[in-house]
Each structure stands twice: as C-alpha cells, then as structure tokens.
C-alpha cells in the first residue's frame, strides 16, 4: 500500500514536468497548428542557461530566493528571445506552405539544437551529463509512517507552479484581449487579420510565452532529476507532446491533465515491471488515444473542410 502511495506521488511529480512542457506545446499548436518538435530542445537550452547562471552565481548546494528567481528569469527571458527568433526566421516564412514543410523544419531545428549542444568547442557544453546545482535544497515536506511515503518539497513546489500556471494561462486565453486575439488567430488566421488582429505579433508572442514556459519547466525538471545533458529535451519533448495530445491538443487544462496522467501511467508501469519499458508506454498510450479518441480527452474533432 505504501508502495502504491509512493508511486502515486512520484507519478504526479513526473507528470507535473510533462504538464508544464505540454502547456507550451499546446499553446503553440493552438494558434499555429504546428507541432513544434523543437519545444523539448528549447527546454534543454533553458536548462543549460539556468545551469550557466547558477555557476556564475557560484551556487553548489546553497542559494537565495533572489538567486533562484534570477536563474528562472534569465533562462526564461533568453528562451523567449530564442522562441521569437525561431518563429521569425524558420516558421514564419513557411506559414502558408504545406504543413509538412514546417514539421520538417521543426525536426531540423530540434536536431540542430540537441546535437549541436553535444559538440564541445566554443561555449557549447559537450555530451557529458552534469549535475544541476541544488538551488532548492531538498527537504522532506511530509513523511507518512516509518518513511514509507515521502513527499519532497520540490514536488509540492512544482505541482503548485504547474497548477498556478495553468490557471493563469486559462485566464489569459479566456479573459484578456490577447487571449481573445489568440483564439481568433487559432480559429482562422486570415479572417483574424482582416478583423485588424496583428496576426504576426500574436503568433510571435505565443511562441515567446511557450518557450519561456519550456525554460521554466526545464529548470524544475533539472531540480527533480539533477543530471542534465543535451539529449534530454528530445524525449521529454516527445512525451510532453504525447501529454498534450492525450489532453486534447490546444486545450490548456487538458495539457495539465494529460501530463499528470502520462506521468502516473509511466510511473506505475515502471514501478511494477521494468524501467526499460518506460519509453514504449508513452507512445503506446498515444497510439491508443489517437485511434480511439483522436481529439484527446477534452478536445473536439474538427471535420475537414474541402
């Protein structure tokens, strides 16, 4: 029983990270109908930037609240700029081309980033994994029984951040002018342009928001997993995409629910069989969802217009 409870908690913790990355995926997909394959790699870049800032600040085990904030903000700002550049120079020229063109570009960017960061000349980090400093000192937040179930403080913090961000994003999409513009662009970007909505600016802003979210998620991921390396973005990104699809892509609460669900399923399969099945689980889950309910749990299936 305590095993089960511990798996439950670990699953939620893993799912929180997927959920955060999935939020960015789902927002970009929502406005552009583009699977931004490189999203996971933006997360990786953000993590490395955070690592760099932490090194500059001389953090190893200790940190201050301001320092942690600085790490988060620096990484998120830099990734927002990166997201803007990506959109401006790689995706915008292809917006009216067939969708596969943009998908191939996204795969290209993903490869360039993840394998580019494996090179070890200039400022590039090289392939070796490195330990992320413990910027949030790990403490047991809650211990049940004879240490049978342990909840760590960072698990609680991550979950709180994920749910908080979900609420903020939900409000942003449904309660603000920017959100209304986003929804209009998502519905039909040509008509939206005719209605006076600055489509390019909305899409660029969405990209920046999504990339900043990815950077934040990356640092939370690094706090959980501590080892960071350039290829970490590929799989986390893919799984976050799976989470977004499970929840219904384009749907903000769906991304969080999908992420948590995926984290739980993975954790239970790994916990009760073997960790080598972990990667197969996510994709198996994705395939089942797409075949049974292509719109995801909360999404709607749009009929194809001719």
């Amino acid at each position, binding site marked *: 029983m305590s095993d089960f409870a511990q798996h439950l908690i670990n699953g939620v913790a893993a799912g929180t990270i997927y959920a955060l990355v999935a939020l960015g995926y789902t927002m970009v997909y929502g406005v552009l109908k583009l699977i931004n394959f490189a999203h996971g790699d933006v997360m990786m870049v953000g993590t490395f930037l955070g690592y760099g800032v932490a090194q500059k600040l001389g953090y190893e085990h200790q940190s201050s609240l301001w320092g942690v904030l600085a790490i988060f903000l620096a990484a998120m700002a830099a990734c927002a700029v990166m997201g803007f550049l990506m959109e401006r120079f*790689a995706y915008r020229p292809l917006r009216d081309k067939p969708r*596969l063109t943009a998908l*191939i570009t996204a795969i*290209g960017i993903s490869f*360039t980033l993840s394998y580019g960061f494996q090179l070890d000349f200039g400022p590039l980090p090289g392939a070796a994994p490195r330990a992320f400093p413990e910027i949030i000192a790990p403490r047991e937040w809650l211990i049940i029984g004879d240490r049978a179930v342990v909840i760590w403080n960072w698990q609680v913090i991550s979950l709180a951040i994920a749910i908080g961000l979900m609420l903020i994003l939900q409000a942003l999409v449904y309660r603000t002018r920017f959100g209304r513009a986003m929804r209009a662009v998502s519905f039909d970007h040509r008509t939206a342009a005719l209605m006076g909505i600055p489509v390019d600016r909305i899409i660029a802003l969405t990209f920046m928001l999504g990339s900043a979210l990815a950077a934040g998620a990356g640092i939370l991921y690094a706090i959980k997993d501590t080892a960071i390396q350039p290829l970490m973005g590929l799989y986390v990104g893919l799984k976050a995409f799976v989470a977004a699809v499970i929840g219904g892509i384009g749907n903000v609460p769906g991304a969080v629910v999908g992420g948590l669900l995926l984290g739980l399923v993975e954790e239970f399969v790994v916990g009760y069989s073997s960790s*080598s099945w972990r990667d197969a689980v*996510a994709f198996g889950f994705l395939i089942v969802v797409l075949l049974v309910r292509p719109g995801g749990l909360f999404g709607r299936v749009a009929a194809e217009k001719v």
Partner: protein
Amino acid sequence: MPAWLRGLVPVLIAIAVLAVLQLLLGHLPFFVYLASIVGVNVILAVSLNIVNGMTGQFSIGHAGFMAVGAYTAGKLSFLLKDVAIAGLPAVVSDQVQFLGTLLAGGAAAAICGFIVGLPSLRLRGDYLAIVTLGFGEIIRVIVQNMEVFGRALGLSGIPQTSSLFAVWFCVFLVVLVARRIVGSTHGRSLWAIREDEVAAEAMGVNTTGYKVRAFVISSFFAGVAGGLFAHFVPIINPGSFTFVKSIEVVVMVVLGGLGSTTGAIVAAVILTLLPEALRTLFLQLGGLGAGVSLAQKVDQIRMPVYGILLVVLMLVRPQGLFGTREVWDLLPRWIPRARKGLT
C-alpha cells in the same frame, strides 16, 4: 522479343554487371563494406520515398522496420549457422539460406508495416508522423527487452554471408519496383493521394488500401535492408535503429526531393559517403594526433549539420534537389530518354 523476356532484360543486365563488379572488387574489404553501407542506405531511402514521396504520407519510423528485418534475418542466420542444405556445396547452401533469411526479414517487417499501417494511416500529416515515430520506438524497446535478441547487447556472431553482389542486387530490385510503381495505375493512385487525398477519394481511389499497400512495400524493403545490414556488420544492437537513424533516412529523401527515386539515391550516396570521405581526409591530412580528433569531430558534427540542412532546405528549396523529377529529366533535350512517367 517476347514481352516476358523484355521485362527480364534489365534484371539479366544487372546480374551480369554486378557479377563482374563482384569479381573485380569483391576482395577489397573496406570498399565492400563502404559499398554495402551505401547500398543499405539507398534501399532505405528509396523505400521510404515510396511512402513519404509518392504517397505523401510522412513516416519517421523507418528504422523500426529495419530493426525487425535485421533481427529476424540475423537470428535466423545465427540459428542456421551449422545447418547445411543436403546436396549443395557449402557456399551455395550458405547463400540460399542468406536469401531465405532476407526474405523472412522482409516479410516480418512487411507484417509489422501492415499492423502499423492499417490503423495509423487513418491519421493525417503530423499525427501520422508522430505515430510512426512512436511505433518505431516501441519496436526498438520491445527488441531491447527480449532475451532471444540479446537485449541491449544485441546479436553478434551472425555469419557474414553478405556480398557486394547481394546488396546491390537488392538496391537494383528496390529501384526497379519503385520505378514500376510510378508508371503503373498504382503509382497514379498514390500520386493522387499525395496531391489531394479528399479529391482522390472522390474519384474512387481506395485511399486506405493504397496507403497501406505502399506502407507494406516500403517496410518490406526496409526489412530487407536490415537483413543485409545484419550480415555484414559484426554486431547489431538496438542502438543502431533509433529515431536518429529514421531521421537520417528522412533527410536523404527530403534532400533528394520527395517523390524522386533517383533523387533519393543521389542523396543517400552523398550523405553516406561525405562523412566517410571527410573522416578519411582528416585522418590522411592531420597526422595522427590532430587527425584523429578532427575525424571524431566529423562524427559529432554530422547530426547538427543534418538538422541545419533540413531547415535550410525547407526555407530555400522545399522540393529538394530534384523535386519530383528524375535525374534523366534534367539531361539536355537531344539525349534520348526513357518513356516519360509522371512529372
């Protein structure tokens, strides 16, 4: 000349040419190895082009089918290592078994292709891409968890019965099949699906049927490529068939031009030989110390270069080197050319 004989002429010519090449060059181990790697990549690229280029479905899980073929053929050969077919000399018996295992590998991959294709080809565009990627990864994870396939260590000790002739005859076959498909009713249906699936369906094309068939043919040849691969490398392990390998093949097809068979061949040859050539060059040039590290750099830098290549191609020339044309469409007009297929 009777019609059935005319169809066989290219096959006979290919056999003769390849037999001569085998006699002339078959004893140079490095050349044969390089030519085999190139050949396997050409088979993969040309077969993927049937799905990604001609049918317009975007599959990025080709390495999975290659893995199925490689493991099936490799394991069978390994089990049959000490078995000889009665009444045949050892060499002939080995080659017959090799052929059998290749076919078995191809068939196993084709069955997987059918299982994957039937449900997932109902999906479109990017969803299909992700699902094929997912299937490729699932296949790899399953292989990695099976004791018979040596788990993460892989299979070694597979008899090295492959030859220059065998690899390039398979290359010839896949090209022949691809070209024959383009010229046939099949090819026109595939092309119609590529251009506009809804319209094709409205014109009475059985879109799901044709897509699944294209998928099965493509995965059959991926399986054969895997089978060949297993018979000339010392060891096969799940690491050879990751998502990265799939993307490598996709880059070849996209660079050559989605829909161009000769484009896929040219791109596969360039992208396989270029890193090898650079590596050899650096080793020759830079003495031992610097040369070795530069040669390692070539390996490291290959993947980011592929990535940049994809992005630049999409921005500057999304149709790839040849678009949907073939090499001979680019020859000057006065050279007589083959009967025109689709353009």
